[in-house]
């Protein structure tokens, strides 16, 4: 048996359903911990609403948030993969929009015309790589616009250095304030070039928030920034409280000696990400949603 395009679209429908209904374990745990540790009445009620909503979404097999994002996919393909994964994903998104359902979010950027199926020019957006495994791996982040709209790029000068990076992240959180549905998760991309820094900032959100960067210096910076941000007291929904940020992940790349690009991607509390692996026999597993 070989993987068919239909296996891909079936897997993508299921992947999108699982992803919009249930959070990955690390994010869910962080929210429950924030709820347990909050003492003030107003933020406690915000976190209770979030925790209740998480439970109700699972129970009803319903999207946890009405903003199911635009479909941005990361795909790892086996060498010599013959199946048209791109077409399979497009078909999967179309079907999931009806079957899950997802909110039809994708519109023409200028006319704002909504085709109603989340498919349009370059959307779904797919990044492809080749890997050494025999399976196709597809990861999706269904990210709402409230948080995405708070994302930013800074082209710092090398002399601004580490302090400049810290300043940029802190100011980004202050500027975002109550808008991105805090408690947030932050992805920080350091280095590369303007486009790479933003790409890394988003890809940083693919790592579980309880896993620190493998480079001890970056790991230290992740913890330091997170602790400082949680001193701000913006709190859940910007109504004050202990938890402003659930987690902060950094990814970096070497950059030009004359540049220091930094990207900040802001993710709401609903840090939805999901992965499916499609094996050569067409069978699919969902490692982010196995519980």
């Amino acid at each position, binding site marked *: 048996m070989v993987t068919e395009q239909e296996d891909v679209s079936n897997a993508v429908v299921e992947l999108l359903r699982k992803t919009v209904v249930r959070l990955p374990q690390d994010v869910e745990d962080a929210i429950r911990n924030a709820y347990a540790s909050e003492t003030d009445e107003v933020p406690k*009620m915000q976190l209770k609403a979030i925790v209740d909503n998480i439970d109700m979404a699972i129970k009803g097999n319903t999207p*946890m948030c009405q903003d199911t994002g635009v479909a941005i996919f990361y795909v790892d393909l086996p060498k010599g993969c013959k199946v048209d994964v791109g077409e399979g994903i497009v078909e999967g998104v179309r079907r999931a929009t009806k079957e899950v359902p997802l909110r039809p979010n994708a519109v023409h950027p200028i006319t704002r015309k909504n085709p109603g199926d989340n498919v349009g020019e370059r959307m779904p957006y797919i990044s492809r790589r080749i890997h050494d495994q025999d399976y196709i791996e597809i990861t999706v982040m269904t990210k709402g616009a409230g948080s995405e709209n708070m994302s930013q790029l800074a082209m710092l000068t090398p002399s601004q250095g580490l302090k400049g990076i810290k300043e940029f992240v802190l100011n980004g959180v202050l500027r975002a304030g109550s808008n991105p549905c805090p408690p947030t998760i932050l992805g920080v991309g350091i280095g590369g070039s303007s486009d790479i820094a933003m790409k890394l900032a988003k890809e940083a959100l693919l790592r579980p928030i309880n896993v620190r960067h493998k480079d001890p210096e970056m790991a230290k910076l992740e913890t330091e920034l997170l602790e400082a941000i949680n001193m*701000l007291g913006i709190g859940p929904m910007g*109504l004050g409280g202990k938890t402003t940020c659930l987690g902060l992940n950094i990814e970096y790349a070497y950059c030009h000696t004359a540049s220091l690009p930094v990207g900040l991607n802001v993710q709401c509390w609903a840090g939805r990400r999901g992965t499916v692996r499609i094996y050569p026999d067409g069978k699919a597993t969902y490692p982010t949603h196995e519980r």
Partner: protein
Amino acid sequence: MPKRIKTPISEADARALKAGETIYMDGIVFTGRDEVHIHALEYLEKGKKIPVDFKGAALFHCGPIMKKVEEKWVAVAAGPTTSSRMNSLEPGFIEKFRPGAIIGKGGMSQPTVDAMKEFGCVYLAFTGGAAVLAAKGIKSVEGVEWFELGMPEAIWILNCDNFGPLTVAIDAHGNSLFADVNVKVKENEKKARAKLGLS
């Protein structure tokens, strides 16, 4: 027991609410976000007919996921959207249409706080992302107007029962929980900067 309030909301009802209170809502709620604000103000200016009456209404900054079940619309997920996107439009909207409450998330800027004070309107914060909880408070979908704007941007007419919890975050007396938090955040920023070794 938290207070329950029924729409339409009179100016006196709105002025009786105090920042920090938790309330639940019953009755008709209209959704409306960017495009509804733009269209309603444009229609009014051109003297064109607006399909719903916003006077005393609860306007919900929300672009829901709706599903048609046997010819009837059902709300699947209906949490609030970021209200600050409507910052530039809301003061004019409140002045022209006189809604009793705006429901949203994240708060709104000072000109809206001022308009709410002047015309007797409140801002009710619903927890962002809590879309299933919100849908539970929607008993039925009574109809949809301006559907051509797309599912997220249309006016959905929602019949609500015990919709909430809603936090009175901006009252009709110029008080804003968000402004209060901002004052504290400014103070806390100094500590956060010190921790990061920033001057």
